[in-house]
């Protein structure tokens, strides 16, 4: 059974921990949601936070878990990068808004020394270290290459140097980590931004409420971009 404090009228908003959280909070606040003080306390043990709206609660989870919470309806709303949404490809998650934050790209990278001698058109099989095995397999399969993925959850850039594999698929923001490890981007897979994720059944059974929240986030983005322009 669900926690008794989560009523039918509650909206749970799942936010990703880490780098995106800093960018997303101004939008959340502009949409009219102010979390309780404990939310900003790094020492808190709380996982579920109250807000100024008695019907809205916030959970802070790993970015990959945001998609899962929203897909299974544990959270009605969430903020997740399209890297995470593409990787899971959950049919129960809608992404009706591009929040325009957390901009980066997903790329294939390999050691600089290898680039000159490598002819990608001859590949039939590649071994790749990545956090995104599903996207990686699809990307290579589309050009007839079988990708064997070594799943890592961080420090991907180490893999080529330590001989784990020669290529990686990862997010690239400025490219400085790649450079520091002697890697170069050889292919661009997708542009990444954070999206507002919405649970499908919630949108269908609570259309007015969920529709209103989507509109509030839409206005929040427009406010922010207007402020940027000015």
């Amino acid at each position: 059974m669900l926690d008794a404090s989560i009523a039918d009228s509650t909206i749970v908003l799942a936010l990703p921990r880490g780098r995106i959280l800093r960018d997303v909070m101004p939008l959340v606040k502009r949409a009219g949601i102010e979390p309780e003080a404990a939310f900003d306390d790094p020492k808190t043990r709380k996982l579920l936070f109250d807000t100024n709206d008695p019907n809205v609660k916030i959970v802070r989870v790993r970015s990959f878990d945001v998609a899962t919470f929203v897909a299974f309806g544990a959270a009605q709303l969430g903020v997740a990068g399209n890297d995470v949404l593409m990787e899971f490809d959950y049919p129960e998650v809608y992404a009706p808004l591009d929040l325009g934050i957390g901009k980066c790209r997903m790329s294939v990278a390999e050691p600089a020394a290898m680039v000159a001698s490598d002819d990608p058109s001859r590949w039939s099989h590649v071994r790749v270290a990545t956090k995104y095995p599903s996207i990686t397999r699809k990307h290579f399969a589309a050009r007839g290459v079988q990708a064997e993925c070594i799943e890592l959850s961080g420090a991907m850039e180490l893999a080529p140097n330590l001989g784990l594999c020669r290529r990686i698929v990862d997010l690239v923001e400025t490219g400085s980590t790649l450079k520091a490890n002697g890697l170069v981007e050889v292919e661009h897979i997708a542009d990444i931004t954070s999206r507002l994720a919405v649970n499908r059944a919630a949108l269908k059974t609570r259309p007015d409420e969920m529709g209103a929240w989507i509109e509030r986030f839409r206005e929040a983005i427009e406010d922010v971009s207007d402020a940027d322009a000015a």
Partner: protein
Amino acid sequence: MTGPTERALLPNGLNDTLMPDAAIEADMEARLVATFAAFGYERVKPPLAEFEETLTDGPGGAVAPNMFRLMDPVSQRMMGLRPDITPQIARIATTRLAKAPRPLRLSYAGPVLQLKGSQLRPEREVTQVGIELIGAPTLAADAEVMVAVAEALAAIGVAQPSFDLSLPRLVPLMCAGMELDAATTASVRAALDRKDAGALQALTALTDERRLTFSTLQRATGTADAALAALGKVFLPPVAKQHVRDLGEAVRLVREQVPNLAMTIDPVEFRGFEYQTGISFTIFAKGMAGELGRGGRYVLGNGESATGATLFMEQLVQAAGPQERPRLLYLPFGTNAIERRKLHAAGWRTRAGLESERDAKAAAKAQSCTHILSGGQAQPL
């Protein structure tokens, strides 16, 4: 595979349904079929397996990838285990019942087996209960199917179902009107089905104006009235406009009969409607993560038009919530048959002692009875 624990293990997605759930499910199934019968739908019972070609013909093409196949040693042809009953009903209607008067109203109930479950419903064996209304290409027929389903759901105690109406042909019609190629059309449909605004924006094959049209269309979802009003403002080719007008009329016809039914409209969704050609619907309920059922208009192999609906029993049991435990009366050893028959006639369920008890009450409790027969009277325990 010898120990008792290993013997309990079932393949993924297959479950034993125990008491009281099995009885609840059977009882609900009977009530659904009875409501459909009240609307004049007659029950048919196709087989569990049939030749692959007939199962995947016409509307069955969409479910073919999810079908278990096996070789029939008798005919040496491939057979399929049905992943969906609708194609079987379509086959019956166009063959054995080809000469039956139209409109033809049929109902069915039975298990289907799928290669893979979905994310929210990992079960591979699902019980489907449904109806098909064949040979009546009218909005009144679409409305009748939705009304019958809504009333059947009410009969089994599903509170607050919500019907999400969709037009699976709308987006392809618009794409055809814009003369988009197949690949772009597929990308547009996929982006709209997931309501993925970012993916839509990234479609550089579209002009800004067209992107805006599609994104306005995507936003025209919500409660029926709001969505119809929003759809009225989207620029649509004439055929698409007619679809939207029909949708509005169908909503009106359903409301006439079931005024309180929650209805939403999502003009762009098409998942699960691979063979539908007209107004289609998905049934949700508050607090339920998955779909309770779906239906819509489609075309049979012989070109006839039909509207159908399928409900998923396991979901309905969950949506109807916990059921009251039926009363069970303990008959101490030696209770005579005449008395038992009287109790049965009065609606009691009984469980009889098979040897003389030292403590009849304790024996009754051990048998999970709620009452005990004592001095000719049913006493609560």
